[in-house]
């Protein structure tokens, strides 16, 4: 009973947070609605007994990705929605139609006609088992992920700094 109530509350918060983040004119309000969405999703992960993933979701998404998005908004156009500019692209109606069509005609029938397992398995959530799995069969994936993150870090710093380095070289030549 409490599980059902929790699921419905978290589901409604998640959908509302995502909708507000996508629709809102003021970008900062949008980012905070997105963080509420991430938090609701972390709650859903806890309900599904994936504790470690819930903690990682809060740590990475709310603590890091959200702050990154806020800094990016500060460094680009800080849209607070005060002017009357349009927020939607030119073909927005077809975008809306495509999203609704994907949901109604593609995803919903696939879910309803699938042969889904009914009951839940009994799981002992354990971080130690996750650690063992990361070291034993999936160690190569872990190393490739580390390489990817290093490359992304170096690439992001290089791309964001690019213009200044070029300007400095030009002024040295002249």
């Amino acid at each position, binding site marked *: 009973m409490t599980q059902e109530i929790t699921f419905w509350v978290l589901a409604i918060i998640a959908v509302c947070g995502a909708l507000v983040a996508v629709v809102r004119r003021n970008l900062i309000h949008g980012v*905070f609605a997105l963080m509420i969405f991430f938090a609701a999703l972390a709650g859903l992960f806890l309900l599904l007994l994936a504790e470690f993933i819930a*903690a990682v979701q*809060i*740590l990475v998404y709310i603590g*890091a990705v959200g702050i990154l998005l806020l800094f990016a908004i500060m460094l680009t156009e800080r849209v607070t929605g005060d002017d009357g500019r349009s927020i939607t692209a030119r073909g927005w109606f077809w975008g809306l139609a495509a999203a609704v069509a994907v949901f109604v005609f593609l995803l919903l029938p696939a879910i309803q006609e699938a042969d889904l397992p009914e009951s839940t398995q009994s799981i002992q959530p354990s*971080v130690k088992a996750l650690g063992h799995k990361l070291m034993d069969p999936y160690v190569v994936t872990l190393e490739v992920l580390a390489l990817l993150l290093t490359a992304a870090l170096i690439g992001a710093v290089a791309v964001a700094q690019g213009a200044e380095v070029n300007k400095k070289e030009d002024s040295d030549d002249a």
Partner: protein
Amino acid sequence: MSFELVVAILIATVPLLAIFPSLFALTTWLERKALARIQNRRGPNKVGVPCTRIGLFGLGQPAADGIKMLFKEDIVPKGADRLFHLLAPILALIPAMLVLCFLPLDFSFLAVWDESVAKDIKAVQGFALDGAVIFFFAITGINTLSVFMAGWASRNKYSLLGGMRAIAQMISYEIPLVLSAVVVVMMVGSLNAKEIADAQVGWNWFVFTPWGLAAFIIFFIAALAETNRSPFDLPEAESELIAGYFTEYSGFKFALFFLGEYISMFAISGLAAVLFLGGGEGPGVAGYPWLAVVWFLAKIFSLIFVMIWLRGTLPRLRVDQLMAFAWKFLLPLSILNILVAGFAHFIPQGNVVAKVAVWMVSLGILYAAAKGLNGLSRAEVKPREYKYAQ
């Protein structure tokens, strides 16, 4: 939800809500007195018993401060975002208090009337979660969000700049904080706060090992920076950006920020006590379980006293010195510490000579690395370039 379960939840959480705010009041008094003595003056000693002239060493000062904050006018700037201006102090307090339930303070000894209630309490406690330490760090990371909200919602250039600097400082120091805790987790093999505390039975606390000592120092420095405490208090210093991100706050909202900062100080000291100082261990715990709570609070209090002492002694770091300290000094040192921990653990130490040798070598490596990194990250003082004057 049976009645016993509700009683168990209440016993597990209400003592925390009772102890830590009263500890907060005591700490504000202690801070003012201790800072005053360091600065060769006396501190508050007039406010004692109300309506009399008896000043009990100024112990009534926290109550007086609280009443003053409650009665101040609540000013919201005209162009400010009202919703966020209200939410920011609340969002600063909630993670700080939520994170207190991940500290292994076992209150099941309070259930003296029924054994099954004690079992229920043990089942409900948050520190027995499989990933308690990770949840601690995850929820402490939400503080950055409230700082940004406070800086943004005040519609004040100085608040915004102060907020941005505070966030940059907090996210930079989160990494050495987590990495120095990773060493302990690696040695114990579990993220469970109760297991980490139980692995330090007797006197083999992790702070008495070479890698534990270095990790404790790094953790403590990073904890000072996370809670914006001196010498890292650039975001809230009065002589810097006015008061930084809480310039526009007055009255009860300011009191909430203040409360949030002190409670997160308690929470991080609590985690330091669990990870390194064997939280709850001390003489006489086996016989009387309530002594574990007393020892834990004593350790937290001594760490808070060291923080206050550092505030009165060290000067403030400049913002570029702060960032260089985190990225170029603490981060490589904490990564090296993980390697040294592996080395110190797996070399067989039979007799005392081998133990002393391993200690020396580990400390030698860490000291040499610290000196080397210190030399590398010295800020160069270049001759000044003038942009406009020729």
